[in-house]
């Protein structure tokens, strides 16, 4: 005898799914309070700066910032500015949209380990953000993108709104 014995359930096709269709558009809107950490971070982006916080007890720099050290459980000791430049830690090429539809063209996205003058980071913990990387998907497939130096391509000042999208993408910065 193989368990489970006679598992039940009634498989259906999409077209047969008689029930209630319930539109949700407009029904779950939020006005997130950014708080001090992300509020300052977003304002920094608007000025073309990437800001982080620092815990002087353990020496960690937090980008994206928070007001507490996740490791020492104490308030952070202030703000530091990261360079808008760093190296790619990992990256992928997306051929689909958030909706699962096929994308018109591949979009490369990855995690960038940022540089902060006066601080050194290993592979274990580092200030890093996820963003688009403006390179060809071949750079991903060949794995050449790992360790690539990239720099933020900022939107023009007048288009910036205080969002992560104030950076258009990161682009190769040369060696």
């Amino acid at each position, binding site marked *: 005898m193989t368990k489970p014995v006679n598992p039940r359930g009634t498989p259906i096709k999409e077209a047969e799914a008689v029930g209630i269709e319930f539109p949700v558009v407009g*029904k*779950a809107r*939020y*006005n997130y309070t950014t708080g*001090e*950490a992300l509020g300052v971070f977003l304002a920094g982006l608007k000025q073309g700066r990437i800001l982080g916080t620092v815990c002087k007890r353990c020496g960690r720099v937090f980008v994206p910032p928070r007001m*507490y050290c*996740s*490791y020492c459980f104490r308030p952070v000791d202030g703000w530091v500015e990261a360079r808008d430049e760093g190296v790619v830690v990992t990256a992928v090429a997306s051929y689909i949209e958030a909706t699962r539809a096929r994308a018109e063209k591949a979009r490369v996205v990855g995690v960038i380990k940022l540089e902060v003058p006066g601080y050194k980071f290993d592979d274990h913990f580092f200030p890093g953000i996820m963003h688009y990387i403006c390179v060809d998907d071949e750079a991903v497939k060949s794995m050449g993108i790992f360790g690539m130096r990239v720099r933020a391509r900022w939107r023009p000042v007048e288009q910036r709104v205080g969002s992560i999208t104030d950076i258009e993408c990161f682009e190769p910065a040369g060696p």
Partner: protein
Amino acid sequence: MTKVAIVGLGWSGFSPEVVDMSFREMMFKAAQRAYEDAGGLDPRRDVDAFISCQEDFWEGISIADEFAPDPIGGAMKSVYTVAGDSLQCVGQAYAMIKSGLFDVVVVESHGKPSDMLTLHDVMSMALDPISLRPLGLANIHALAALEARAYMAKYGVGPQHLAEVVEKAHRAGLRNPRASYAGRLNAGDYELSPVVVDPLREADIAKFVDAAVVVVLASEAAARDLSDTPVWVEGVGWRTETSTLELHDWAFPLHARMAAEDAYRQAKIADPAKEVGFAEVDNRYSFKELQHIEALGLAPRGSAAEMLLEEPSTQAAACPSTSAAARWPRGSPSKSTASPD
């Protein structure tokens, strides 16, 4: 088996809109206070597990527990979420410590309703999609109003009784620095409050606040280390009546009665009306306070209202409650938790 104690408590917020802190920063503030209250405990070293009480749609984040660990010192430690009210989390912490595996467990809960632009739509998403949601109720408080009428009709409770509850809660809140909506109401004020869903007026419905609360629980041995004044948890109960609104008792909160019985059995309380010194009952709606006083066995069924009018001093002493304002709805009308200390 070990006893379980509460050894620390912290909070932040408790105002209609906390504009200068994110929910995570509120959690951090509350946690810092709680750990200080628990004798300066270090969550990175001294805490075995953390529970965060939250629901995705309240947060506007799917799998919202992702954001739980860092602000309370729980990163890379044992953390999980209970989708329910915070007393249920206390119940989980109690069971965890009783099991013998955990010595110190932290319970965190927060609400930031001011972040929700479409609160009514979000609350309506909790209704059964087949039998209830298609009705498109203009005000979800109507469901509580159905309970209110059923209770009032069955036990002869009138608006004068609800007015008394409202007045008492607002007055009690004046002595609580965290009660945003406290105030002194005169006898006639209640009637000036607009009818929202008859039989409930605006004054009968608790208003929302943003807040975070952190509680530290510990085993007997750990509690003696951490605190000179631990408060022992003698019993905890939580019960669901049914998921199906149509099948639940509209006139009486059976779930609260059953949860209380569980807690009293553990606490060896035979006559709660005599043995319970004071109670904080859920009064998110005025009539709920009366219902819950009865469900908890602090007054015979159907008699809380008359007791309130006849012996205000006794009743106020037996059941002083925070301002209705200090409550924010979490959980469903068919669920209840009781935790006498």
